[in-house]
């Protein structure tokens, strides 16, 4: 509908990257200077996997811009007392006063040194959802780079809301920070709790829709019938947190019932550690001279180092080895003579023998016949032996994939699931091959743009890994951040993203209390805490305790959109010009999170479609001002020149668009340089496009081969193997880490160390939640139901909880009005649809309206999204429940990677009419 009589109508190209499934292209329709509509950008139809379309969230950006609850000028706190029931007394101040206040504080902190007496950064920062705030914070990363050490330990959901174990183990095994099906080619997808139709963004939704019409089969395994389950060919309502047992049984069928002849033997032999001989001590048998793992050469009938020229390794079997060594933790070498070596594959087969479908059926509440059928369908669809041509190269065609969702691949049991998923892929040669299970990007390794370039030869014929050291000489005995990632989690590494992927709940927990045998320096509070596009007071766990911790932080600076539950405790609110009002360029295409793997790569511009509302300012302007006022302008500009703006270096050997380090540059100057550098870089010098060109055209891309989607050819090129199925290295580093902690007389991480195993065993994963209740002094039987959380496509990320349009349209999707429960269960509790109910865990209660359904297990409740707001305007009137309110934060529910699962044991009751809380 047009304005009754518009004077001007323009269409401004931009992007939406509010969630990790982006970025996606869009245009903003502007009528007489007012943004009125979001539209797809069909200019990108041919290059964008979702044909230039954005998802429902982007359509809320118009209201996001004009939301009357926005903070439109800087505010400072006048009430020094911080508390949920304290009025912060925010008063408006000028930008000059705000920046002066902040830079004075930062300067005084810096004068004391960027690290404090405990060796922890004095400045901390928390950004929301999966790095996406970086797509809206202009050049702030350059300011942070100029500053130096910053603690990103305080999570806003990392580890408990993401697919954490997949990030860590995926990246370790196949450079897969995120793992996806090769949906455009796959024929069979076992989707275990993955809610890709809600969280995969337009690219995933488009691809899976195409795949459905093409005739692929997706089996959705999860306790409730999610949107993704709805769109799947089959729903398997599995008991919560028993997914490892289900997957072990799938492996059992493949290796114990179908056997090696039905599998991709060549892949197992050449691309995995399957042939490596394992000794009786569970360690690889190694060549006494070179210390290389041994394999049994079928041709010469003897054990030889794995990389012996012309070797034909046996994948299965037991063999006598005359002489070998094994290397245990801390380089402890054992000489072995006339020892039996069992191939890693055979160890796997023997290990999985006990995990039959009949065994799993009782644990998972899924019939054995169903498990067996799914395993066989998976294998039968794997097309072992077939090939496909991709951009002129013939590759194996293995169109089967296993995908995992949040709460399956974080917390206890996640390691087992990630391992089992990856083993299922390697057994049929589907790992990183067309149609199979793919990694789509790296974050712990570099470069982020091209995971193939992160592949280099490392130990034992595997890829090089940048683990945090666990040996005595190099182990980080003084944590470098408050979540202790470098010290406690070897596989998370220590690159830019590693901190934020550490055990982020530890940072929060240890602010309140440390374990009895804590022998690290005392955790200190950050002196300055930056927060942006993040509301941990809602999005993390045990939120009642968490806000008490936040309230103790001495100086909190929030780049604020509205008042919310976290910045309620802020000292300074700085409102930035938001999505439709500010200027920034980011990268698009290549292979990114989730299903953002493209056939193009390039850059896209976000530009002010409308004037900033009120006195909000472009984040780049704010960053430059901060750099100038803190005396960091030079370092800031140099960081920009290095590419810290997030796109490209401004100067390389072939071009130079660098900024004068000594000068203060305008927002447009900075991004104009980025535009020129990016276009020159992408076109390899053929074209240089300036900011004006990008404002008109929006994006610039170049073609990319689909071969970049698949890592296996790269491994083949390097002659490397995937470190699967046997986890000898994990076993060793786990032992080393244990040694280090025990040397420091710390045992509080011992349970987590049990996760470091060569072949995972089933342990009673759901039972851990019952045990945690008992340990907390309550009775497990008082909390008979499982409460799970699941994502809302409409609400999640980007402040959407404040957007009336999202509220309205979300209510068309089941569950957005309360807590979903099985209708029969509800009847047992005397609960009718719409009744107000209390959901109580051993730490607290949350309240909402019952949404009765059949598509949910009788022992399970599900809450969509994260609510229970008490400060955010608009959202605080929702009266929606939240799992986060009742989920405890404890060591015993933290796994070895430092993650936890969105799952709680709860009690349920109908509230009486008029009952208040």
């Amino acid at each position: 509908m047009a304005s009754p009589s518009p004077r001007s109508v323009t269409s401004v190209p931009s992007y939406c990257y509010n969630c990790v499934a982006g970025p996606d292209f869009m245009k903003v329709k502007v009528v007489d200077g007012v943004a009125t509509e979001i539209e797809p950008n069909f200019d990108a139809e041919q290059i964008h996997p979702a044909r230039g379309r954005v998802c429902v969230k982007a359509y809320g950006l118009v209201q996001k811009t004009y939301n009357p609850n926005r903070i439109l000028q800087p505010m400072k706190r006048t009430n020094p007392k911080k508390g949920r029931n304290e009025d912060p007394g925010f008063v408006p101040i000028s930008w000059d006063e705000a920046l002066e206040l902040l830079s004075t504080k930062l300067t005084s902190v810096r004068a004391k040194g960027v690290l404090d007496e405990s060796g922890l950064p004095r400045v901390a920062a928390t950004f929301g959802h999966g790095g996406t705030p970086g797509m809206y914070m202009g050049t702030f990363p350059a300011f942070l780079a100029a500053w130096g050490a910053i603690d990103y330990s305080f999570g806003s959901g990392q580890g408990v809301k993401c697919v954490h174990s997949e990030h860590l183990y995926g990246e370790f095994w196949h450079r897969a920070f995120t793992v996806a099906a090769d949906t455009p080619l796959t024929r069979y997808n076992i989707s275990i709790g993955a809610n890709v139709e809600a969280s995969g963004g337009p690219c995933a939704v488009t691809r899976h829709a195409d795949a459905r019409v093409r005739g692929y089969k997706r089996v959705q395994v999860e306790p409730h019938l999610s949107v993704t389950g709805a769109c799947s060919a089959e729903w398997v309502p599995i008991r919560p947190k028993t997914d490892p047992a289900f997957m072990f049984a799938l492996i059992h069928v493949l290796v114990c019932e179908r056997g090696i002849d039905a599998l991709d033997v060549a892949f197992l032999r050449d691309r995995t550690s399957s042939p490596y001989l394992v000794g009786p001590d569970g360690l690889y048998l190694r060549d006494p001279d070179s210390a290389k793992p041994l394999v049994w050469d079928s041709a010469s009938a003897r054990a030889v180092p794995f990389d012996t020229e012309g070797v034909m390794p046996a994948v299965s079997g037991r063999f006598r080895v005359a002489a070998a060594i094994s290397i245990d933790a801390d380089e402890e070498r054992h000489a072995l003579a006339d020892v039996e070596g069992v191939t890693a594959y055979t160890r796997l087969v023997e290990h999985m023998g006990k995990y039959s479908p009949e065994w799993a059926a009782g644990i998972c509440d899924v019939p054995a016949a169903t498990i067996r059928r799914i395993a066989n369908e998976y294998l039968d669809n794997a097309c072992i032996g077939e090939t496909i041509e991709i951009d002129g190269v013939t590759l194996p065609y293995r169109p089967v994939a296993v995908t995992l969702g949040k709460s399956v691949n974080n917390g206890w049991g996640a390691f087992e699931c990630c391992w089992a998923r990856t083993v299922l892929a390697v057994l049929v040669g589907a790992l990183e091959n067309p149609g199979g299970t793919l990694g789509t990007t790296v974050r712990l390794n570099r470069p982020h743009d091209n995971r193939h370039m992160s592949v280099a030869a490392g130990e034992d014929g595997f890829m090089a890994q940048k683990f945090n050291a666990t040996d005595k000489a190099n182990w980080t005995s003084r944590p470098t951040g408050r979540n202790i990632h470098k010290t406690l989690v070897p596989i998370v590494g220590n690159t830019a993203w590693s901190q934020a992927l550490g055990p982020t709940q530890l940072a929060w927990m240890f602010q309140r209390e440390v374990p009895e045998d804590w022998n690290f320096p005392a955790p200190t509070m950050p002196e300055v805490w930056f927060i942006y596009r993040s509301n941990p007071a809602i999005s993390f766990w045990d939120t009642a305790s968490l806000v008490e911790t936040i309230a103790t932080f001495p100086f909190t600076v929030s780049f604020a959109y509205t008042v919310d539950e976290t910045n309620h405790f802020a000292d300074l609110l700085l409102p930035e010009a938001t999505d439709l009002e500010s200027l920034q360029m980011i990268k698009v295409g290549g292979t990114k999170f989730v299903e953002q793997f493209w056939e193009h790569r390039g850059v896209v511009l976000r530009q002010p479609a409308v004037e900033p509302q009120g006195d909000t300012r472009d984040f780049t302007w704010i960053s430059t001002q901060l750099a100038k006022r803190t005396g960091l302008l030079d370092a800031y500009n140099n960081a920009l020149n290095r590419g810290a703006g997030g796109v490209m270096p401004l100067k390389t050997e072939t071009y130079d668009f660098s900024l004068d380090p000594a000068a203060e540059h305008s927002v447009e100057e900075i991004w104009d340089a980025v535009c020129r550098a990016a276009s020159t870089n992408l076109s390899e010098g053929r074209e240089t496009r300036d900011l004006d060109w990008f404002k008109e055209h929006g994006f610039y891309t170049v073609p990319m081969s689909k071969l970049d989607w698949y890592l296996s050819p790269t491994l083949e090129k390097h002659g490397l193997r995937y470190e699967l199925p046997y986890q000898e290295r994990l076993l060793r580093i786990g032992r080393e880490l244990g040694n280090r902690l025990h040397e420091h007389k710390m045992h509080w991480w011992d349970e987590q160390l049990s996760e470091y195993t060569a072949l995972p065993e089933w342990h009673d994963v759901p039972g851990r939640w019952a045990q945690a209740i008992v340990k907390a002094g309550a009775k497990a039987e008082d909390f008979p139901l499982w409460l799970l959380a699941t994502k809302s496509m409409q609400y999640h990320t980007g402040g959407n909880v404040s957007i009336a349009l999202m509220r309205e349209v979300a209510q068309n999707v089941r569950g957005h009005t309360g807590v979903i429960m099985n209708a029969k269960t509800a009847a047992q509790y005397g609960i009718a649809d719409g009744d107000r109910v209390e959901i109580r865990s051993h730490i607290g209660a949350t309240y909402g309206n019952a949404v009765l359904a059949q598509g949910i297990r009788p022992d399970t409740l599900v809450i969509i999204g994260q609510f229970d707001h008490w400060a955010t305007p608009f959202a605080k009137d929702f009266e929606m429940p939240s799992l986060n309110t009742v989920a405890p934060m404890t060591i015993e529910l933290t796994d070895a990677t430092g993650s936890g699962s969105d799952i709680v044991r709860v009690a349920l009751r109908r509230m009486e009419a008029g009952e208040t809380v």
Partner: protein
Amino acid sequence: MKSARQKTAGKSITPRQQQNWDWRAASNFICGGSGSGLLILSLFAAAAGADVRPAIVLALVLVATGLTCVWFEIGRPWRALNVYRHIQTSWMTREAVVALPLFLCGALAFYTQHIVWQAASAVCGAAFLYSQARILVNNKGIPAWRHPRCLLLMASTGLAEGAGFLALAATLAPPPQPVATLAAAVIALSVLRIVAWRAYLAALRHDGAPSGSLKALAGIDARIVFGSGAGAIVFAAAAAANLPGAVLWLAAAGALAAGGGWMLKYTLILRAAFNQGLAIGHLPVRGRGVSGPPVKPGWGGLG
């Protein structure tokens, strides 16, 4: 009815009670049906020699009240005359058209007491009553209305109410009154309405309708048949038998006949007017899955 249908959020596929016509629209069917029925019955009373002036006044007041209520209901009352633009197919237009001669003839009948005008006003009443019934029947969105037997039901109840009001009006006019004749009319038309009602209900159940409609209608069945229906018949019979206080018996019978009709129409429009709801003819095949049975929840009866 301000802000009707603003909360579509969370709406399901299941039929739901219409929200756009409230008591004001219902009043038009209630009063208009009674008034037009009364005009028709007045002709017979006049032919029998009764003074029907009070009845005519009452009839016109009823019809006018109904139309006034509607005027207050519509979103754009100041362009209400646009209602006359679609006589080709719209029964609402036709109802509005008929209303004009209805008032004219009614007024002339009152002043002249001439049988011609009385007959003309009765014809207008019949046309008005028919138009109202057709308004409901032509609304395809409301299964309980669009059933063909709803037409006879609406007509019969209008006549029964008309008889009821005539009986009531008789208490206002000076004696002598043709009590037995009026009582016979009340009895006959009450029986007709019961027959029409039960036929409608049976057919609706047979053909299928939203469960909410069937439930709401079933809820008043006893009152229609045994309350107002049988009550009116018994009281009218008492009047016809010239028991002591015959006029009062007649009045009571009339009140029951009219009241029963009002309850029926109130229920039909404000309680049983569940819309069609939505349906999925075939559940989609998701990938290599299978289709599923059609989904059309919230429907009852055999259909």
